[in-house]
């Protein structure tokens, strides 16, 4: 077996083992901290079904699945833009979701009337994320010019964030809810959310892998990809659609969890690089492990209080990027 293939196998084994251990830790980590003895006691008691079955299990699995979607979205974004610093939220999905959440919160604060008041926060965030990306595509007149797409994404992000700020100023009651959404949270994940995230990942990952040949070709530049006879505009549009769906699904369930989408493909490329068919799956698995690890840490670090999971991913993700920067400077 070649060395790269062996490294990939080792990474796959490591990720599977980490997922298993972290899922077990997720079942043991509760509102009062982490303890296998307390878990044993809980499992023997009458509350096992509610606390472990209805709260900890869907929360842990949901964090794993949402992290998987973010990792996949990160790999798609970095492949599409041929930029290792590309982030799943680049195309306006984060600001679109945030604006939709603020609209729903403001509608609720103003008395619960109007068309937005009946929409739940999860559905609003998903629709907002897709709306943000759609607006970016409209402004960029399609996905065939990646630079224009990127600039349109930046513009949409700034404008929609500005609108969110404006609405929050008008209805300050929405401020706290918006802040919690921006910090990310896995605390409200239930089995219904897991079902949506799982179905999304099961559908989007194979679809994305079918486009891996395009992503491999894009590494050499758009002209090279075109020379291979690939219908570039249509496939790029499809890639953007997959990216938007993966990001929108994750964001709607967990809020804006920073750095997972950015860091997961980076880690895979560092540890065991490979073609995109492999990179997409490995990034999804790495993202899943990263978010689940952050979720378990968020529950236990200051128990019985809890940290917003997005704060941990931002702190650790930022530290990782700084370390990377220093390493590259030293090299």
């Amino acid at each position: 077996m070649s060395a790269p293939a062996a490294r990939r196998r080792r990474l796959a084994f490591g990720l599977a083992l980490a997922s298993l251990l972290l899922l077990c830790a997720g079942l043991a980590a509760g509102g009062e901290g982490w303890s296998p003895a307390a878990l044993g006691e809980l499992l023997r008691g009458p509350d096992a079904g509610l606390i472990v079955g209805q709260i900890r299990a869907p929360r842990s699995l949901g964090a794993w699945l949402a992290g998987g979607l973010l990792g996949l979205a990160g790999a798609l974004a970095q492949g599409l833009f041929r930029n290792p610093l590309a982030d799943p939220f680049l195309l306006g999905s984060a600001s679109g979701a945030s604006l939709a959440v603020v609209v729903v919160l403001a509608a609720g604060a103003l008395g619960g009337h109007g068309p937005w008041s009946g929409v739940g926060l999860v559905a609003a965030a998903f629709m907002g994320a897709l709306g943000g990306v759609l607006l970016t595509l409209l402004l960029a007149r399609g996905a065939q010019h990646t630079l224009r797409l990127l600039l349109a994404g930046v513009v949409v992000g700034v404008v929609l964030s500005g609108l969110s700020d404006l609405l929050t100023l008008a209805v300050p009651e929405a401020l706290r809810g918006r802040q919690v959404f921006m910090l990310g949270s896995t605390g409200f994940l239930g089995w219904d959310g897991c079902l949506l995230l799982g179905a999304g990942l099961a559908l989007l990952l194979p679809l994305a892998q079918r486009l891996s040949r395009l992503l491999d070709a894009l590494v050499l530049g758009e002209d090279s990809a075109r020379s291979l006879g690939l219908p570039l505009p249509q496939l790029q549009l499809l890639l953007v659609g997959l990216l938007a769906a993966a990001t929108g699904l994750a964001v709607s369930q967990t809020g804006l969890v920073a750095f997972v989408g950015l860091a997961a493909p980076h880690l895979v490329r560092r540890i065991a690089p490979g073609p995109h068919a492999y990179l997409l799956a490995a990034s999804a698995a790495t993202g899943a492990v990263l978010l689940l690890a952050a979720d378990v840490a968020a529950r236990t670090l200051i128990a019985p209080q809890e940290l917003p999971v997005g704060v941990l991913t931002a702190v650790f993700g930022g530290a990782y990027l700084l370390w990377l920067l220093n390493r590259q400077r030293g090299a």
Partner: protein
Amino acid sequence: MSSQPRSSCRSRRRLGRALTAWLLAPALAAAAPPQRIVSLVPGLTESVCAVGACARLVGVDRHSNWPAEVVALPRLGGLDDAQVERIAALKPDLVLAAPGARVVQRLQALGLNVDTLHTRSHQDVRHNLLWLAQRLGDPALGRKAWAAIETQMAAASASVPAAMRGRSVYFEVEASPYAAGPGSFIGQTLAQLGLRNIVPEALGPFPKLSPEFVVRAQPDIVMAEARQVQDMPRRPGWASLTALQRQQLCAFQSADYEVLVRPGPRMGLAAQQLADCLARLAGEPR
């Protein structure tokens, strides 16, 4: 011969009784006054205690700090980042929250009984007290609690010096500056004390104002938390506010200020604090 139909009739009756009991069980459980309450809103925590059910609280949000009995209770996060597992583990038969919070749906999905109540105006506070007292089994306590607030409000209003009535007021909620408009519970209290709010009603309960708006409105009286009042003369143009120059200021220390900005049973006390400040201002040379 006749024993078989009789036993079948008996078993049918037993089955009917069991079925009726099973069907009525949720309704009976819902009708029984809750004994284990979690409150995720400070104003509702205070309202529960005001209707005599403080001992039934088993957990509160991180901001609930009055009365003293609730300080030792488990803290379950805030309304928007409530800790679902810890709430469920407390096995509450009633969770009180504000409408729109995401935790409401999650707790309801877990089978918990969640009620959402607004706390924006005097009417909301009155409704909450009456509703909670009814729900907790003694409606008279709700009426009593609201009557106490009304009595305190009336006494506070009566104690406002005549010279202060009709004066314009700016109540700052936050330094950005956000103000309490006439539609907010604070604005309603100020109106009851005979003051005129510089904020138009159309701007909403807690609008963010331009600092220039306050300077141009030249309120007769400025009310805010003490540390914000200290900062006001340093804001561009605010030194020209006659209320600052003439010290027509109500600067509240944080504990007193908390009473003012909490929509609950202490609204009468809040009105008296405001009235006391107005009396103090009236006694000072202008």
